[in-house]
């Protein structure tokens, strides 16, 4: 965005402090515009009253992210990529996590196609209160035949709501696919030095976003982007080529850095989302495990620095899990609080016979414990001690998790163990075993030492709960 202080944004607002946006003052609203948690359209008077129309338009221009946002697909599963304003996540946050597409081809038999798509669209991994998922399907035209490709694309549309990337350099093939898929707003891949005129025509005719491919030629890439923009095609994605190994991979990495730095620094002609194709790793390695490993490695590098969308091949869990987690790592908002509220919380419908499990208020720890328990349908109480957002092991070492803290948590929640439970027993995390005696003294209850990893709590409870003698 072109402005960076709330004062700059405030100048464009009505200044009436009407409060309809949910903020008390226009100045407070302005600060939300700058941190991008609210947008110009959240100011209802500016939207409704004609006299503000021009100011709203000017304001939105100033607030627009440096990197253009491009939306692919329609409906709930559509993905938006781009939209970044900074080069380092701690300076604000990165927006619109990298979209991960996995490939299918038009030469796959029906069964294989169905299985792959099913894996892509159902793969999920629980993490901090929600599921990590995959985003897109890239359909590659290997047959070279427009009809074959179009019929595969049609099948894919029948199998999934996920947005598509349609991959071919042949305009006739792309056209055939767009005839059946254009209303799903797929991403066209790709225009290159040879076919750009025809592909530009298709992008206009079918109104779909399009990728520009110029392997290791940033002048050409910029030249194509400039040309397409002049033609009125601005939903663009840039692919500077992903060379899978050696010095060319180093150059690929540098190209990503250069494009993004230029875009954030204000070169609007190249300020579009960037595509990586780690799938090329499969062209450099023969055996599946090596190829899959290297693909994950290339994807990791380009997820960290600055890929916005990428096409990959391996759908092995050992590739998908680290990819999804790394993406989450990079795109998690660093401004988000890392803690949950301390207190005594119920999981399921606990009774006086249910276990009482102690943990910390570090969000990651809490959600891990909570999901391990609720996933196994165990009713219990979780005592969340205020460890200032530090995990169990470090909090024991650093003195943030103590017997006093646990006692205080119970007292503040007015949770009397003797009154509310039948066993007067708490379960400490395995990594805080050394607090056992102290907790027994201070809390006045029996203390059991649970498993070191809460994933093993269900099995541990089976053996150790209820406690032997009341």
């Amino acid at each position, binding site marked *: 965005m072109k402005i960076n202080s709330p004062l700059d944004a405030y100048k464009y607002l009505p200044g009436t402090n009407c409060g309809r946006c949910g903020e008390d003052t226009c100045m407070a609203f302005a600060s939300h515009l700058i941190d991008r948690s609210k947008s110009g359209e959240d100011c209802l008077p500016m939207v409704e009253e004609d006299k503000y129309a021009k100011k709203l338009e000017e304001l939105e221009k100033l607030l627009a992210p440096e990197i253009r946002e491009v939306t692919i697909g329609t409906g709930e599963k559509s993905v938006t990529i781009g939209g970044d304003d900074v080069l*380092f996540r701690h300076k604000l946050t990165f927006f619109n996590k990298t979209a991960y597409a996995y490939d299918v081809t038009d030469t796959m038999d029906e069964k294989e196609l169905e299985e792959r798509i099913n894996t892509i669209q*159902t793969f*999920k*991994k*629980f993490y901090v209160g929600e599921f990590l998922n995959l985003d897109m399907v890239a359909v*590659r035209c*290997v047959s070279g035949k427009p009809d074959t490709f179009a019929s595969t694309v049609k099948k894919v549309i029948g199998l999934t709501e996920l947005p598509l990337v349609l*991959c071919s*350099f042949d305009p006739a093939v792309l056209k055939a696919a767009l005839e059946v898929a254009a209303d799903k707003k797929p991403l066209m891949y790709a225009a290159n030095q040879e076919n*750009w*005129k025809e592909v530009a025509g298709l992008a206009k005719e079918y109104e779909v976003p399009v990728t520009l491919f110029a392997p290791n030629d940033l*002048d*050409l*890439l*910029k*030249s194509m982007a400039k*040309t397409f923009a*002049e*033609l009125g095609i601005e939903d663009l994605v840039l692919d500077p080529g992903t060379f*899978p*190994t*050696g*010095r*060319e*991979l*180093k150059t690929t990495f*540098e190209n990503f*850095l*250069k494009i993004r*730095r*230029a875009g954030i620094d204000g070169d609007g002609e190249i300020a579009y989302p960037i595509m990586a194709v780690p*799938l*090329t790793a*499969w*062209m*450099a390695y023969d055996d599946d*495990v090596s*190829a899959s*490993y290297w693909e994950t*490695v290339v994807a990791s*590098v380009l997820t960290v620095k600055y890929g916005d969308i990428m096409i990959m*091949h391996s759908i*092995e*869990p*050992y590739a998908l*899990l*680290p990819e999804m*987690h*790394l993406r989450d*790592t*990079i795109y*998690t908002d*660093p401004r988000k609080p*890392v803690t949950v509220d301390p207190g005594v919380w119920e999981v399921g419908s606990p009774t006086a016979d249910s276990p009482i499990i102690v943990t910390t208020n570090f969000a*990651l720890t809490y959600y891990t414990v909570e999901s*391990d328990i609720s996933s196994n349908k165990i009713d219990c109480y979780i005592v969340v001690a205020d460890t200032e957002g530090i*995990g169990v092991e470090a909090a024991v070492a*650093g003195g943030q998790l103590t017997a006093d803290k646990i006692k205080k948590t119970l007292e503040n929640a007015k949770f009397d163990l003797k009154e509310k439970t039948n066993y007067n027993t708490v379960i400490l995390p395995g990594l805080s075993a050394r607090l056992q005696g102290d907790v027994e003294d201070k809390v006045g209850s029996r203390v059991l030492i649970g498993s070191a990893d809460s994933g*093993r709590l*269900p099995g541990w409870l089976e053996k150790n709960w209820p406690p032997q003698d009341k």
Partner: protein
Amino acid sequence: MSDKLKLSDLNSILKDLDVESLEGVTIEGDIELDIQGGGGMNPAMAYALGHEAAQISLHVANIARMLGYPVDQLFAQCLGAGGETAALQAEPAIEELLQAKFDVARSSEWNTPIQEVTLGATSADGGSRGHTITLGGEKAMPFYFDAEMPNRNYVTMDVFDMPISMAKSVKSNYEDVMGDPAEWAKKVVNEYNADMVTIHLISTDPLINDTPAKEAAKVVEDVLQAVDVPIVIGGSGNPQKDPEVLEKAAEVAEGERALLASASLNLDYERVAKAATDYGHAVLSWTQLEINAQKELNRKLMKQCNVPRDSIVMDPTTAALGYGLDYAYSNMERIRLSALMGDDELNFPMSSGTTNAWGARESWMKESPLKEDSDWGPREYRGPIWEIVTGLALALAGNDMFMMMHPTSVQVLKEITQTLYGNIEAKNPDITNWITAEV
């Protein structure tokens, strides 16, 4: 009809005419077209006008066709095309790509190189190492084009002074050497290509074996005998015992320029620092994910303990992928950016306990404890990639040295970091038509 029309006006008049309404239409006189813009027309305008003109010719042709004139024949004659109405399709009027030159500035903010720290000493410098290793010296973020990176990343592999519990897929590599640190060290250097060895004296922990410091120091001597790479000496992590253990170890390793791991704010860092300066070693300055604590400890080591700048390496803490790597990553990135911009309390090479990745359940558990999760697949492949991706993310944040465990992880992490460093030559496949690749 007026005498003068803008092209677009004509078009909008004509486009409303459909076949039925054409009855009785008369077209009188010449239609004068006023095309604005002239020679200075930009390509987009030219395209727009071309588009309008083509649309008009389409409409006019339709009218002519309605009037019974053999339009298509005429076009075929004029354009030399075989009956196709090629001229009627709206082709982009831009025939050549618009010229553009890509350019981006090198960073002007990064004006302070990272301190270089050399580990290990050869016989020329009073040690017995076969070679030395130099960390740091960067003038830009890692692998960036702004400035050449002077030193590559290095991997030091973990060796323990007693058998310990570890993930199955890690353990299977070390079963034959567990309990024999010297053999273990040889194995990681000779078979797994470790650049360095870290000997962890964990048996010294009073809660484990309480091995006396003097006895533990002998293990350090054994390792120095067994391999000739530079070494890192680690304690047990017990803040009461570690200073003593590191003192004794530093003494027996005098002149070898080892890295003592570590000094921290929650132990007697002065003793550790003194052990380093007295016996010619470097010291690892370890803090827990807190940039200000890192500054404080570095300042104390320099000002209060007189540790020379070329003898400090930082460990700002590594949290595993999925378990706080986002903090670890941004913490390192901020430290490195501040250092490059001139913060002399953060201007040191960094080290990562990448081994921490093995604490993540995804790296070692047989299957997900959550019923809702998709199948996690075989853990033999999950573990090493967890360690690789954890380390790789931190390499991109500016980390210089990696403490690691699994041989596959070490091999792949070295391959990718040295590729980005520019050390790896490889013949690349032709990716211009990757779409049709058989994979």
